[in-house]
Each structure stands twice: as C-alpha cells, then as structure tokens.
C-alpha cells in the first residue's frame, strides 16, 4: 500500500512539475531577437516550396482572395478560420499566444488592438520582410496605426473613415434638413422625435468604439502612449465639446437605447425608427445584408462637423493582417498578407465591397464613381474618400484598449441609464483604465 501511495505522490509531483515548467516558460522569453532582412528571393523560394498558412480572420472578402492566392501559388494551401470575430477572436488569439500552441500564421487585428499585441511581443515586425517599403501605398491614418518607429506590425486591410448614413425617407417625410453640424444634429433629433415619438435620430446605448471616434473627431486626445508610459485624460477641450453636445441628446432622451448589432437594431434601421447612423465606411455591405428591407431609403453624407465648414473626420474600426511571432512559416504568411493587402488581393476585396486603405484604390476614378444600388445610385465612395483624406492625425489608442473597451459599459454606461453626467462617467472610465494600466506594469501618468 505504501508503495502505491508513493507512486501516486510521485505522479502528482510530476504533474505539478510539468505545470510549473509550462508556466515558467512563459516568462523566460524576452523576444528581442535581432531580425535579419528577408529578401524577396527567400519569399519566392518559400512560395515555390509550398505549405499551409493558417489564417484567423473574419473579413468576408478574404475568402475569394485566398482562393485566388491558391490558384496563383498551387503549392500553398490557405486555411481560413473565419467563424470568430471581435472579443471571441482576441480571446482565442491571446490564449494561443499565452499557451504558445496553435498560433495562427496570419491573424486579423483591428487597429485599436494592435499595440496590445505588439507591446507584448506577440507580433512579428514585418519591416525586414519588405513591409517598410509599402508606406506610400497606404493612406496616413491606417499606416500610422500599423507603424511604430521603424517597425511595422501588420499591413492595413481596410479602413473606416466615418460618414453619417441617414434614412432619407424619414427626413423627407418630416421635411427636416439633413444636419451638417452636431448642433443641427441635436436640433434635428428634437424635431424628429417631436414629429413622431417612435423616431429617434440615432441609437446609442453606450458603445466604446463610437464614443472614442467621436472624441477623435472633436479633437480630444485622451490617450497618450510612449512605449510603456501611458496617460489617460478625458478632461480636455475636445472631450468637453463632445460631452456638452451628447449630454443634450441623453438628457432629452433623443437617442434610442438600442445596442448595435442586435435584432432590435436591424429592425430599427429597417423601419425608420433609427434615422441616422454615424459609423465607418465599411458599413454599406452590412446594410445590404442586414437591412435589405430599407434598400433605396438610406444615403451617405459627411459626418456632421463641430463648427460649420470644418471637414475634420475620424476613423471607426478598420483592421490589419498581422503575422504572430510564433507563426510556423513566416515567409509564406507574409507573402499572403502582402498579396491580400498590398497586391492583387486589394482589388478583389474592393470589388466585393470592402473599403480599402490603399491610395491607388481610393483615387481610382472607377472606385469613386461606383454607384451604390442600396443608396439608390449614390456615388457614396466620394464621401468616404473625402472623409479618409480628412481624418485628424495623431490619435492613439491604449496598449490595453481591448480591456478598456470591455469595461466601457460598466463605467460610462451609467450616463445612459442613470443621472450620472457624461464627464463624470468618463472620469470613472479613466480611473478604471488607469488602475488596470498600473496593475499591468505600465507607468501611468494621471
């Protein structure tokens, strides 16, 4: 009996040691290896040799790109995993990186989440592969998002210069002018809601991405990031512009408390009870598939301005393709990323409705004069391209924006359901973000 007990004890000890070892590995890797330049020849050789590339990306147009890529390089197999998006995608990616197992060769990462992964050395610097020479191909906003000094952590896939989509039928019915400034927007909101209490100018139940984009356009720069030094401050002139205006909408209950991407939301966009939607230029494809009922009723317009005539815009969403540090076959992975986001793949994606981040496509007359059936033949790309050219620069997200966004409704959400005012609510978000940043080892200036 004693012998068996001993063996059991040894077994448990062995298990514990294995567990210890597995975790211990996590800290021993400093990841600051010097990278050698990879020549175009190396990449060509890898393509000839072939192999499998695991791609985790939910961007729908990549399906055709992958098929074309496989046709061009028959020895390469693209294994596209597209069933996860948003938080689920990042959780899976973070877990794979932490476990150092099952890491994909290519991963889609939205601009706001990029620095979190590059900072923790989860992503390959693509500059040695030739990505640094592609700068001129992209508009400045997306390029700034993927580029950190002499390092390039991904290639921009699309961008989300903001525009205001509005239901023309509703505005025509109540003879209300389409707002061009946020003051007009508030006035229009009141008129619409008075004309029909069921109609709201917009839905907003607290959305971190929307609020940060609004702050961006208003000239607020709440996040300052310098390596591991960060600061969070929602108390600036730009933020005040936003909170003053938006508080009016909340106080008078002029925005519908519906969350985006829910059934209620699609219904509201379809039946005219949500009259405008201010969001990224990637939206039209979602209108076509999600709100087919309202085809012909909606139009695109420039995002309302803070002062009349001001053209400043902001980005909302948009993502890049990256190559994780632990990818198996980086040459092949980079070849695919370049093909999809800088090479022939771009046109394929644009043809399927993606909004590009590349200058060539954005300035292509054919692209600009594309008539959107959904918008009753409107050449909406002209509005989007104009917005892209006017995106205010020097915005940055936190290196832990993904977490910060996840607690947005815990904090700022209070402004939507109770008497808490937006500035105070933003302050609680700021405090919670600072707390997390400090816990994670950042130097946070208050």
């Amino acid at each position, binding site marked *: *009996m004693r012998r*068996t*007990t001993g063996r*059991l004890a040894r*077994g*448990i000890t062995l*298990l*514990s040691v294995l*567990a*210890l070892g597995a*975790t211990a590995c*996590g*800290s021993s890797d400093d990841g600051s290896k010097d990278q050698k330049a990879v020549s175009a020849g190396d990449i060509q050789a890898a393509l000839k040799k072939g192999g499998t590339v695991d791609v985790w990306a939910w961007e729908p147009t990549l399906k055709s790109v992958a098929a074309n890529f496989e046709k061009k390089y028959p020895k390469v197999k693209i294994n596209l995993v597209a069933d996860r998006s948003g*938080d689920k995608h990042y*959780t899976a990616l*973070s877990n794979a990186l*932490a476990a150092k197992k099952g890491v994909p060769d290519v991963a889609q990462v939205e601009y706001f989440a990029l620095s*979190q992964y590059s*900072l*923790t050395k989860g992503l390959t610097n693509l500059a040695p592969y030739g990505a640094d020479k592609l700068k001129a191909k992209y508009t400045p906003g997306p390029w700034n998002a993927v580029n950190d000094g002499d390092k390039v952590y991904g290639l921009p896939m699309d961008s989300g210069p903001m525009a205001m989509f509005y239901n023309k039928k509703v505005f025509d019915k109540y003879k209300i002018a389409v707002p061009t400034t946020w003051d007009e927007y508030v006035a229009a909101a009141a008129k619409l809601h008075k004309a029909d209490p069921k109609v709201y100018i917009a839905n907003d*139940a*607290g959305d971190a991405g929307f609020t940060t984009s609004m702050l961006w356009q208003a000239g607020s720069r709440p996040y300052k990031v310098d390596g*591991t030094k960060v600061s969070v401050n929602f108390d600036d002139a730009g933020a005040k512009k936003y909170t003053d205006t938006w508080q009016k909408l909340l106080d008078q209950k002029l925005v519908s408390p*519906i*969350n985006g991407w*829910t*059934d*209620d939301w699609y*219904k*509201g966009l379809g039946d005219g009870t949500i009259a405008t939607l201010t969001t990224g230029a990637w939206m039209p494809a979602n209108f076509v598939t999600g709100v087919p009922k309202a085809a012909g009723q909606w139009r695109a317009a420039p995002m309302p301005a803070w002062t009349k005539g001001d053209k400043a815009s902001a980005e909302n969403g948009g993502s890049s393709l990256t190559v994780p540090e632990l990818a198996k076959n980086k040459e092949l992975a980079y070849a695919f990323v370049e093909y999809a986001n800088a090479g022939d793949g771009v046109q394929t994606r644009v043809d399927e409705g993606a909004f590009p981040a590349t200058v060539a496509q954005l300035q292509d007359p054919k692209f600009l004069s594309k008539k959107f059936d959904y918008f009753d033949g409107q050449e909406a790309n002209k509005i989007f391209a104009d917005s892209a050219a006017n995106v205010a620069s020097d915005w940055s997200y936190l*290196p*832990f924006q*993904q*977490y910060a966004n*996840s*607690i947005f*409704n*815990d904090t700022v*959400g*209070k402004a*939507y*359901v*109770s008497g808490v005012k937006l500035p105070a609510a933003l302050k609680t978000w700021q405090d919670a973000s600072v707390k*997390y940043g400090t*816990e*994670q*080892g*950042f130097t946070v200036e208050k």
Partner: protein
Amino acid sequence: MTTLEPPVAAKRAPARPAAKKDRRSWTGWGFVGPFVTVFALVFLAPIGYSIYLSLFRDQLIGGTSFVGLDNYTQALQDDQFWSSLGRVSLFLAVQVPIMLGIALLIALALDSGRLFGKDFFRIAIFLPYAVPAVVATLMWGFMYGTKYGLVGDINTAFGITLPDPLSSDLVLASIGNIVTWEFIGYNMLIFYSALRVIPLSLYEAAEIDGAGQIRVITAIKLPAIRGALVIATIFSIIGSFQLFNEPAILRPLARNAITTDFTPNFYTYSLSFNGQQHNYSAAVAIIMGLITMVIAYVVQLRGMRKGA
C-alpha cells in the same frame, strides 16, 4: 485516502501471513484506483493548479512573477468583488425563499391527493428544468424586450408602459424570475419524493387523533422532509453564489445594467478573458469557493442539529 487504512483491529491481528496481508491491501487499491485516479485528475489537479496560479502575477509589462499571497490581499480589498458578492447575497436572501416556498407548496398540494390531473401538473411544473439554462435565458430575454418582445407587445396592446425588466433597477429581479421558473420544478420533485416515503401509518394515527390537514403538515410532513429541505437550500445557496449563465447571456441586451462584475463568477470570467488576469482571477475564485463552502457547511450543521 486516510479512510482506506484498514481498521486498527485488523492491523493488530497477530500472525497473519505477510503475503496474504499484502494481497488484501492491493485488492483494495485495485477497486478504488480508478476513482482515485479520476478524482485526482479532474478534481484535485485543477484545484491545485488554481492555487498555484493564484500565487503569481502576469503583467503585460514585466511578465510573470511570484507574488505570494498578494492576489488574496488585493481580492479581499477589492470593492468590485465585494459588491458582486453583496449582489448575489441579496439574490440569495430574496429569490431562494420564494423559490423553495413555492416549490414546497406545490409539493404539498400534489401530495395532498386532492388535486385533479396530478401527474400532468407534476410534469408540467418540472418541464422548465429540462430546458437548458441558456435556451431558457434567451427565451426570457426575448420576452423581456420592451421594443419587440412580449413586454413591448403588451405595452402596445393595452397602451400602457410596463417598467423595463432589463433596467438597472429591475434586472436582478428579472434574473431571479428566470431562475425561479427554471428550478421550482426541480426542488418540487425533491420535496415530493421525500413526502412520498412518509409511512402511511403516521397519517392514520393522525386521523385517529383527529388532526386536520394543517396539523398533519406541520407535525408530520415538514419534520419528515427536513433533510430534503436542507439539501435543497444548500443546492440553492451554491447555485446563487455561482450565478453566471443568466447575466452572461442577458448582458448583450442590457450592457449598462449588467456590469462585467455583476456576480462573482462573472467577475472572475471577465478578469480572465477580458483582462488576461488569470492569476488574480484564480485567487478571487478560490476565495469565493471558500466562502460558499463555509456558508453551505453552516447551513448543513444548523439544519442537521435541529433535525436531531
């Protein structure tokens, strides 16, 4: 494992052939071996690993380091943790008595033998328990909708404005309603089966003594099913403290009302999967486990003492 020691008397038994003794003890291990192995793998190892994890801290900047009991001291001072615990305690104090009370009433009604269609009622009331919690919550979430859900339809049909069940003030009660709906049948069945095993002779004696129905319930039925009541209470306490499914599934409908630290379990989930704070999350989970154990144990001790 200590219980596997042979009785003291057996150890002292003189002059047993050594080989025989050895074989006997081996046989015992053969029988419990499969259990011990599985128990160690699926029960002890995860707990051990969680405790091990909870002693470290993994930061985005600086990586993993050993911090001893720091995570525990932090958790004990964590307002978010205590407020979530307060919320489930309130839930426990209100929802569990209501649920068990109704379940007990139904069980007594079924047992009284005066109900028409008894079998149908028993199955119908038990049925919600057979619906997976996720499906049940989705269904209720749809009914709670004030725009296009049942509540919205009632508002339109009668021209009234019912309060929003998913607002900050009411969401806990709405979750309580879902849980009550789900588990009344389950608890009713526990009580009912306990009632069925009461010897009929007791009732006959009561009848001879001229006891009425109420007297029979208070003097015979309730004391007889005390054990079942205690068990159901303990299950309900554990269930309340582990509240997760309902808030997690309703959250997309009420992001501002259901915070990421709504219940202790949901808080550990958020810490782990949104914040990548696996170590701290493990510490919070262990503290929560200990609190649940202590409370369940106290209830059991009290229940059993009264029963003695």
